[in-house]
């Protein structure tokens, strides 16, 4: 049953129709959660004992950083699926995600820099976390330029998948950089195994903003992947019926 569902869903046609069904729901649900969490975090959460009001940038910085890595992981999984099972939809997803991943990484870097000025006294530091995130951003740009340099889409998809898999080595480095090196960047406040070191009054809106931001980015991925399918499958008869 699951296998049948996956096979069905892996068809670009089914995917396109399913996206249209769920898109509005995901978008409005995420938008409400994000606006609610941001309002809560910016207006109702008390000031931080040490950082004052500057800490409130976490409601943008943390979701963007989380998403920048998660999107790359998603691309990594899609690459394996494409190379092993030759699922076309996975290849479309990879190139659909890449520009959005670059955007979230850019937001994470910029918001981190803005946060750095009042807290560290500098907007940039060549420490392990920031440098590895910058590498991730360059990787995203490299992936986009590699794909754009080939007119043969199938070849471009294969090469892109291989590069995504190789570049995935950077993800654990980013995650663990604050533990492996002594860095200016603080270690993770929320982990799966330990109690969060952040106060609940700041934690709940943060979780809400992560969920909301995640949903909104998923919507962007859905639109981008829809666009990819429409470009790549334009010669198919069902596309003509769909349009």
């Amino acid at each position, binding site marked *: 049953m699951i296998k049948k569902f996956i096979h069905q869903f892996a068809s670009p046609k089914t995917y396109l129709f399913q996206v249209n069904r769920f898109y509005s729901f995901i978008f409005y649900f995420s938008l409400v959660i994000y606006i609610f969490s941001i309002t809560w975090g910016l207006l109702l959460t008390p000031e931080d004992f040490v950082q004052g009001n500057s800490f409130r940038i976490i409601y943008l910085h943390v979701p963007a950083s989380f998403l920048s890595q998660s999107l790359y992981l998603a691309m990594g999984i899609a690459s394996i699926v494409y190379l092993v099972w030759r699922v076309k939809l996975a290849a479309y997803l990879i190139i659909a995600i890449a520009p959005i991943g670059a955007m979230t990484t850019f937001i994470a870097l910029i918001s981190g820099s803005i946060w750095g000025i009042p807290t560290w006294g500098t907007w940039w530091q060549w420490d*392990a976390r920031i*440098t*590895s995130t910058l*590498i991730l951003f*360059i*990787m995203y740009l*490299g992936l986009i*330029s*590699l794909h754009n*340099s*080939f007119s043969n889409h199938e*070849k471009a998809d*294969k*090469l892109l998948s*291989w*590069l995504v*898999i*190789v*570049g995935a*080595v*950077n993800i654990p*480095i980013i995650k663990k950089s604050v533990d492996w090196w002594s860095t200016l960047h603080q270690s993770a406040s929320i982990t799966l195994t330990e109690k969060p070191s952040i106060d609940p009054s700041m934690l709940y809106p943060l979780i809400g903003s992560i969920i909301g931001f995640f949903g909104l980015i998923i919507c962007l991925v859905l639109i981008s992947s829809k666009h990819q399918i429409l470009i790549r499958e334009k010669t198919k008869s069902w596309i003509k019926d769909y349009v």
Partner: protein
Amino acid sequence: MKILKLEYLKLKKKTRSWLGPILVFWLIMIAYPLTVEFLQDKLEIGFFSVLWIAILISMMLATEDIFIEDYNDGTLEQIVIKNSSFQFLISMRIVMYWLMIGIPVSVLSFIFTLGTSEDLVLSLSIIPLSMISSYIFLNLFVLGNALSLNKGSLLGALLTMPLALPVLIVLGKSLISIQLGINFLEFILLLLGCLSIIIIVVPIIVSYIIKAHLE
């Protein structure tokens, strides 16, 4: 051994491919003192940064045409059809490039370090670091060149350059530990660990990438 000898003869014929990167490395290291004052203590300040970047650039130049000729004249296609161990052939080609370019660059690194720092221990420590790092850089740029096989080597270099940055960070840290007299063997072991993974993984991935180009 036969493959290695064949790769040696092929590379030896292409003088520009192996001599060019060594000369570029040499020129960068000679040009460096001209940009700073000729005082010994001033010379040392940025010397090692220039050294690592020079190694990186020379390895980038070394791999510029590593596959393109064979790709254009159909040799790669023949090798893929005939040879069952394409990965092994790629490994041997990288080894030969390292022996012909990486080793001389490491020896030159030692000479330049000795000339600048006048510290034999420090200069000797540079040899393993430059040997390992040049091999890692070669592998990474080979990967990049395989990806951008008929699209120019610049794209390939840009794609894999970010992966080389952590190696540069480790090189910088290992140098500080040498200068402070802390045990730097841990850094060499870390680089060796990375290298042992790269040596196995890169030829496999490169072989798949080249096959994708030939399909």
